[in-house]
């Protein structure tokens, strides 16, 4: 089942179009890495998904139900409240009341959501994010990292099925970043929560995302699985032989699923799923004199930057 599906989503502020014809699909259980440059429209898309921003056009289908069904006459107030509880949000920065304690912030939201055993649930999420000792402290005295963790606790309070996290690693030191990443993975694996996470820290996304979506200038450039990204980033092989045309023909015949590109100077770039040693044996078996044989690992950052700047066609 798709947890999120957007169709023709658009948002304009006056003449300025922030998001255009945006299509996104997030399946249940995904940790969806949402990648884009500053101002590309990530936060706006996330706000449209959670309902904080009303789309100019298009629709957001959550948990398989279209908005008109969620908001229509047939929908009861409790169903709408249940919908709110199914989504946990941490967008841009933690939304905290500075003059209240961490516990009181959580209780205020727990009461608003109508959570039955509010106090116990608040204690539970405080423990989950590692703030059990800081519940009574006013949040204005919190460090940025503690605020981020409390923001995540607020998002988790309603036991959501979907978490929308916008730049959750902002302001975190390396240790706190790792703790936050592990927590997100733990939540997804243990509770089956679907997570959409936008971040500029691509190596962190690389360690946890199962799917990716790349947004550029308000449009979805490309959606792909983590496997596809790994294949496109890490699997290329550079080969140069004394007889390049012959070597290309041999390899194309032996590895029909792989992608080949011939570069000036006779170098063949081979991408896809293959065993490097087997390729070497194939060339040797065909009597090819190998002049160059090297693996080319493409940096994930370069890969996404290319996608964000030039779109899919230039990759």
């Amino acid at each position, binding site marked *: 089942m798709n947890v999120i599906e957007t169709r023709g989503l658009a948002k304009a502020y006056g003449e300025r179009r922030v998001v255009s014809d945006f299509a996104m699909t997030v399946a249940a259980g995904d940790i969806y890495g949402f990648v884009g440059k500053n101002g590309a429209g990530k936060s706006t898309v996330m706000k449209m998904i959670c*309902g*904080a921003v009303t789309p100019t056009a298009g629709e957001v289908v959550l948990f398989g139900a279209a908005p008109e069904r969620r908001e229509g006459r047939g929908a009861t107030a409790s169903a709408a409240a249940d919908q709110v509880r199914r989504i946990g949000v941490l967008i841009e920065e933690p939304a905290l009341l500075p*003059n*209240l304690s961490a516990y009181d912030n959580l*209780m*205020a*939201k727990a*009461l608003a959501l*109508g959570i039955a055993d509010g106090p116990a649930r608040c204690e539970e999420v405080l423990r989950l994010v590692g703030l059990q000792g800081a519940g009574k402290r006013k949040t204005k005295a919190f460090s940025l990292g503690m605020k981020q963790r409390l923001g995540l606790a607020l998002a988790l309070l309603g036991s959501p099925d979907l978490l929308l996290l916008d730049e959750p690693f902002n302001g975190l030191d390396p240790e706190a970043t790792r703790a936050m990443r592990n927590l997100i993975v733990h939540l997804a694996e243990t509770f089956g929560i679907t997570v959409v996470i936008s971040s500029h820290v691509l190596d962190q996304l690389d360690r946890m995302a199962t799917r990716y979506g790349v947004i550029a200038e308000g449009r979805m450039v490309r959606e792909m699985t983590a496997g596809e990204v790994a294949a496109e980033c890490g699997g290329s092989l550079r080969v140069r032989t004394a007889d390049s045309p012959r070597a290309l023909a041999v390899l194309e015949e032996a590895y029909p699923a792989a992608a080949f590109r011939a570069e000036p100077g006779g170098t063949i770039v081979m991408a896809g799923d293959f065993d490097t040693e087997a390729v070497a044996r194939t060339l040797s078996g065909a009597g090819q004199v190998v002049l160059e044989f090297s693996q080319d690992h493409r940096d994930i950052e370069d890969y996404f930057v290319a996608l964000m700047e030039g779109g899919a066609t230039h990759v």
Partner: protein
Amino acid sequence: MFNLLKSDLYRLVHGKMLWVVTAIVVAACVLVVAMMHAVSSPEFLSMTASAVDMTVTTCDDEGARGAASGDEAEGPAAAAASVAAAAEAVDDVAENAAEAEEGAASGSASAELWASVAEDPQALSEADFEGVSREMRTFATPADMLGDSVVSGGMLTLIVALVAALFCAQDFTTRFARNLVMDRRGRVRYYGEKIVLVGVLAAFFLAVVSLTSVASFAVAGFTYEAANSLTDLLAFFGLTWLVIFAYGCSAAVIVWISRSAGAGVAWAIVVCSGFLGAAVGQVLLSLAVIAPWFGALEPWLLSSCVQDLGAFAGALLGTPAAAPLTMAPVAVQVLIVGVVWAAACIALALTALRQRDM
């Protein structure tokens, strides 16, 4: 909506703002009572009468002296100034006495006191001042006491509007509203709940001010000539609540439109205190010279309703309303104005504002 209200009440109870403002309101009420107790004491009245007597005597003497020696010492201009000063002081007392004579006809003890001061200050006894003090410490009814001491000044409307503005703005300045994840229908619930909360705040502060004032005046020895009927009390509290609520809603709407605490606070201070309303009222009354219908608009301002609540607190059902509703009591006029203001604010919040992104 009930869950949102519970959440907001939790925030108010566990935060500082409500208690700080409540403490200020209680202190202000006690201070008002203390000042009224002080100025109505026989000692203060005696002191004031003596001061007036001395002023009259001194001005008379100095005026005469100045007139006599003016030609020699300081010239005619100085002499004329001295005579003018003396005459002015005598005029002030005479003015008070003239007003007092009018009052004396209606049997007011304080009016009689002023008349006596003008005629023969030395003839006043301690018993006279005690009589005036007793009269000053007697309100017509409890509703009149509340209307006079806490409603007509605009303190209640200002306080409720300030708290409503600051609390509503907090949701946007801290972005806490985003935790509640709202689609359009959710926003209707959100704004609806906040409007209910303004009503709760209006009732809370009206109760705090009323109880504090009643208790403080009782402790200070103030009494009432008569008790209000239940209908009069209900009319007074109901309409006062309505007007406070309408002002509070207007402050909340300003915050929702501007998303700024500053704009809400400015609105509360300038508009909800009655300051702007009083100014507009004066302008309308001035323009009535050109076109009389301008003057007819003045009683229909919300600030004028606050003044009416203060002036006719105990007789809202017995005092006629302004034109063209002269056949109806002033309570109906206040009801109409309050309902129109509140309804306009509620309609704006639940229709146009719900379209706005959170």
